[in-house]
């Protein structure tokens, strides 16, 4: 089972290594981790996708809460949330298939952000499934390089974590 955790932490030197170290040391698997500063510059927000059953999730949450620099941990799994991930995909492209690739990008509402004689870079935003789908469709052309931000998520409505 996958869970998405929103973790508010002090925006301070060394916090990322504390969190990452905790996962490594206790043998928890991180699927993805995205981190950036929040509306309050003293607080960073980590979005962590972790794999495990309810017991694992409970321990992860409690152990994270024990870190002095962690302010709050929220499991977004049970919540109504909006989730996005951004991917940049560099795909082989030449005059012959360029338009075909552009069509695919179009269907996914992805953007072409760089075009060269033998490649293109596509920017796509969406949930995990959407990114997986476009990746599958682009694979036959040859993906030269791909980078993903990891998932970020917010609750719907006016409530915050």
């Amino acid at each position: 089972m996958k869970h998405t955790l929103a973790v508010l932490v002090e925006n301070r030197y060394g916090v990322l290594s504390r969190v990452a170290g905790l996962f490594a040391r206790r043998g928890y698997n991180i699927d993805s981790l995205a981190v950036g500063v929040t509306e309050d510059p003293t607080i960073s927000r980590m979005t962590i996708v972790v794999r495990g059953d309810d017991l694992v999730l409970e321990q992860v949450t409690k152990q994270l809460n024990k870190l002095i620099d962690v302010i709050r941990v929220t499991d977004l799994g049970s919540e109504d949330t909006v989730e996005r991930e951004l991917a940049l995909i560099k795909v082989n492209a030449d005059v012959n298939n360029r338009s075909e690739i552009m069509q695919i990008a179009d269907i996914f509402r992805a953007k072409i952000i760089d075009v060269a004689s033998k490649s293109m870079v596509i920017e796509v935003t969406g949930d995990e499934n959407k990114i997986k789908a476009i990746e599958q469709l682009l694979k036959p052309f040859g993906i030269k390089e791909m980078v993903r931000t990891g998932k970020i998520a917010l609750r719907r409505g006016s409530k915050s974590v």
Partner: protein
Amino acid sequence: MTEQTEKMTGARALIECLYREGVDTIFGYPGGQVLPIYDALYDSKIRHVLVRHEQSAAHAADGYARATGKVGVCLATSGPGATNLVTGIATAYMDSIPIVALTGQVPLSMIGNDAFQEANITGITLPITKHNYLLQDANDIPRIMKEAFHIASTGRPGPVLIDIPKDLTTELIDFYYPEKVKLRSYNPTYEGNIQQIKKAAEEISKSYKPVIYAGGGVISSNASEYLRALAEKVQVPVTTTLTAMGAFPVDHPLFIGMLGMHGTKYANYAIQESDLVIAVGARFDDRVTGKIKSFAANAKIIHIDVDPAEISKNVRVDIPIVGNAKKVLEDLLKYVEKAPTEEWLKRIAHWKKSYPLHYIDGSGSIKPQYIIEQIHDACKDAIIVTEVGQHQMWAAQYFKFSEPRTFISSGGLGTMGFGFPASLGVKMGKPDRVVFDISGDGSFQMSSQELATAVQENIPVIIAIFNNGYLGMVRQWQELFFDKRYSYTCIRDSVDFVKLAEAYGALGLRVKQPSEVRPAIEQAIASGRPTLIDFWIECEENVSPMVPAGAAINEILDLERKK
């Protein structure tokens, strides 16, 4: 109340912070990057005990903390000084002991350059500290010191390390000591949820076969009195873990001894047959539970612990109560009633009579259990510190502890070499008590250099070496599970311990006959000097009873050796 700020160096500020925290003694070892701190110590009122290895400084601070309940402090230089603290910090971490470790660091501008004697000690100690800091600004010294002592001593206690770049110790700052800590992300729960407490009280009051399983949290929260009051009011038997020995008087009729691998048969039987386990400040360690699936299989479990992460970590808990053990017990007392335990107590009394802790007296050879009994007889209120091994278990089994903080032992990490330096810390914290380090011939050789510290600083502890010529605990496992193939566990004739003691200027005594045991103990107590007694004990005596690792805790081996 407003406080005047005062200009001082970072080093003096550090010492000033120690004063403000009520620290009277620290344990340390100097070096290049802490020279300014040592200079500030030179004419300060704080007593600094110079150990002979930094690991001992951490153990001594730990022992001081366990004996007094105050935060222990150790100090080491950068690089090797700091890395030498690691085992001591890990030992304190595993047993939730509050210490503050101060380490020197290369100047800020040089960090990351592999400078001379640079070690990333905050990185290294990340998994073995409750929290740690790398100081970045000398002006932060008072705030961070205040936070460190607060974090170390509150909630679930533990070690905190502060790494101090040298240049910050010579900088001038405006000293102002904050009265309060402000940490939005750290708010331990003290009060237990009252609904949960009532639910627990109801369950306790109607139980037929309850057992209290008390752990180190009872000691660290000073909850012994309430534990006793609860046990007596409800009429429920009490077992304690290794780290909680002393939390309940051994000679109390409701006490059933330690549980777990080397616990009493009756404690383990009682747990296995119980219908309700009341765990207080204990963490269901595998030495205690044995095969986890069959641990107290028919019992409901109430778990009182200050650390929410301990709840349901190893066993499923029916009624969790997160809070300070003392506070929760105090509240619980108001709601519980006497439980219908008459039959249960009779059954336990029967077990106690049928399966007492016992050993078979040697004809001529010295039985280790006998030494422990004699120490108790000679000095009932001695503080017993131990190393790790068979002797540690015998001390836990045979000394009749009557108050908390009188049994001091490395439980979670099981660190050989802990006891002797820890005993120095204990004696510094409790100078009026007789302090014994119950030691093994193996363990003692891991910290024997501290004889110099004991003599130079005149810290009169008594080291009782249970000399069996073996790394006995390992030998016992080899005997039982590896067909007596004693692979690298014989250490016979390592050294003449008496001469070793004398070489350092301590008193050394050797005991080869049972009849000499008591006089030697008395002589050591009377001497008022650091004293080592080399007891030549029965070599292949085993710790009994024993639950083999991974077995259910009522699958118990009897291992008395006849002679």
